[in-house]
């Protein structure tokens, strides 16, 4: 085994794999190691038997659930925003060559005890069952304000200053009801709690625009999802890295970490020998002494259904958001629904993965409102995860650590972490360059 590298990366979660890919394309010599036998770490998609092994080791999956290999069950349920930053990175690095995507068919929100489609334009707002007659009109003018707003045209600002006025003030101007604010803030701007109401409206505006543009891109919902599950994403970026010279070692525990006299990272020992590099990037599980608890625990419940989720028009896939206020909580509950149409379950089976931040000492009871929406389940597998973040930024010891995957419903915070790590490691901001085309790479490879 070659022993000198520019960067050693530990853990093949999505954050680490994106960084490996980007750094390899930059010309860095990368060694990427995972102690487990499969790609993805916490962001893997597992087969049915792997999931039972993890969450219910004494039980095997019912035979009625079909072939083990037909299942790709995400450990961390999230969707991509069609116009979001992860999509942008996928397109620029052309990892889209290896992964096929499909839309998530529906985006639903819970209001007053039932679920309804989130309106994504003025027309849908008028038709929506979420609001009464007059409220629909108020919602329509609010959406018109959002979509017509132009920075340089003061007339479109309607007397509001997005950097000064709070979001609550914007809502007030349009006279929106509490329940309407709930679905705008939580199901469109995708805020996990109500802190945003007292902040300047700018970021909420940006988030609503991301939502609306993402819906406009492919039509059904703002979300897209890879065929065969989210576990394809780390694999795709790992392949990008490998094509640009990255070395991959799975099933390889770290036996020892080396530091110099100043406490700076110098390398690791594995069963293959010693590998050296001036920098290590890793997920929190590889350096437990260098991370701290964020103070949030996430509960995730994988529900196996043999029917679509009721009241979603038999949709094959959906995001359902239960805003915290609607059920007297501090954090939203998310339900990600996927099925055979994304090649992640056996035929006629559905997966609904519920997640939220735990607020009490009876977390499974907190999920009750979500279970009620799903109807009968074939089985439910639950896990609780503690979230971690690095103690330091890595400049002292050259150990650059990622954060745990948060409970948010999409990848925008994950790409924030990628960019932050990229900046800490390289000293400059990530600027995405277009990768060479298939033809250019072919001709280079054939020279």
């Amino acid at each position, binding site marked *: 085994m070659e022993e000198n590298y520019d960067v050693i990366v530990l853990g093949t979660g999505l954050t680490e794999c994106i960084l490996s890919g980007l750094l390899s394309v930059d010309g860095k010599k990368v060694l990427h190691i995972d102690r487990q036998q499969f790609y993805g770490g916490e962001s893997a998609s597992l087969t049915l038997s792997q999931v039972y092994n993890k969450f219910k080791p004494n039980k095997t999956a019912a035979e009625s659930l079909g072939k083990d290999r037909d299942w790709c069950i995400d450990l961390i349920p999230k969707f991509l925003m069609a116009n979001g930053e992860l999509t942008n990175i996928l397109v620029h690095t*052309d990892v889209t060559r290896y992964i096929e995507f499909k839309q998530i068919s529906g985006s639903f929100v819970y209001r007053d005890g039932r679920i309804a489609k989130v309106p994504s334009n003025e027309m849908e707002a008028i038709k929506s069952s979420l609001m009464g007659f007059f409220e629909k009109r108020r919602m329509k003018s609010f959406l018109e304000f959002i979509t017509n707003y132009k920075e340089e045209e003061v007339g479109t600002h309607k007397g509001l200053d997005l950097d000064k006025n709070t979001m609550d003030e914007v809502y007030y101007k349009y006279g929106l009801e509490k329940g309407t604010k709930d679905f705008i803030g939580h199901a469109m701007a995708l805020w996990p709690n109500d802190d945003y109401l007292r902040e300047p409206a700018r970021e909420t505006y940006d988030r609503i625009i991301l939502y609306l543009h993402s819906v406009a891109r492919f*039509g059904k919902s703002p979300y*897209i999802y890879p065929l065969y599950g989210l576990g394809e994403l780390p694999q795709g970026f790992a*392949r990008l890295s490998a*094509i*640009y010279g990255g070395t991959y070692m799975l*099933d390889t525990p770290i036996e020892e970490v080396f530091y110099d006299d100043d406490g700076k990272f110098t390398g690791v020992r594995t069963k293959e020998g010693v590998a050296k590099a001036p920098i290590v990037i890793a997920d929190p599980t590889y350096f437990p002494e260098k991370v701290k608890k964020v103070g949030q625990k996430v509960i995730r419940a994988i529900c196996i259904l043999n029917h679509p989720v009721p009241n979603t028009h038999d949709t094959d896939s959906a995001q359902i958001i239960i805003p915290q206020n609607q059920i007297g909580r501090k954090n939203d509950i998310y339900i990600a629904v996927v099925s055979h149409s994304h090649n992640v379950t056996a035929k006629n089976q559905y997966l609904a993965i519920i997640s939220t931040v735990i607020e009490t000492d009876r977390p499974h009871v907190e999920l009750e409102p979500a279970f009620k929406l799903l109807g009968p389940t074939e089985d439910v597998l639950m896990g609780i995860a503690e979230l971690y973040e690095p103690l330091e930024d890595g400049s002292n010891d050259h150990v650059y650590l990622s954060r745990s995957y948060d409970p948010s419903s999409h990848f925008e915070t994950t790409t924030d972490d990628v960019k932050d790590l990229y900046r800490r490691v390289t000293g400059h901001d990530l600027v995405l360059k277009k990768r060479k085309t*298939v033809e250019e790479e072919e001709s280079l490879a*054939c020279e």
Partner: protein
Amino acid sequence: MADLVTQEPRFAQFKLVLLGESAVGKSSIVHRFVTDSFDDLRESTIGAAFLTQTIQLDERTTIKFEIWDTAGQERYKSLAPMYYRNANCALVAYDITQESSLDRAKSWIQELQKQASADIVVALVGNKLDLEAERKVSTKEAKEYADELGLIFKEISAKTGEGIKDVFHSIASKLPVEEKLNSATKRRRNIDLNRPSTNNQESCSC
């Protein structure tokens, strides 16, 4: 109904994955096939997502191979499941001058049985036929193994080009072309992320 269109030119694309121990000449085989050239000092990584090459199967049928290289990920047994995903055919190479490379080829074939779809077309090829004098693996041994499992078998030389075209033609002739052409019209419901945003995209009516 099919009669009306029988004379139309047909075009089907298939994913082919390369497998085999490092240094058996996987990339050289592909380069001989794609560019009809050979480089003695070829470096071990290839630096492309995949290479493509078309062959004419019959008068009206063109087959395009999308050839996936391992990009070195096989070295520490770290090939991702993605690699095998939807592979229609596999070329598993060994080196006729290296006894152990046939054993490794056999274990890749087992891996294919586990990971790939059941109808994958597999070709076992013994490379470096130009080094006949140094042969360690007998034709008989490898052929018997291949026959038993119903695999395509050929001995080839990426260096001289011997047998290369034959192998790809044999693979092509076993591929389910009709099925692919039929499913291609049905399938394409996935989205194209590289397409710039448009506001009026009609959602699929599947």
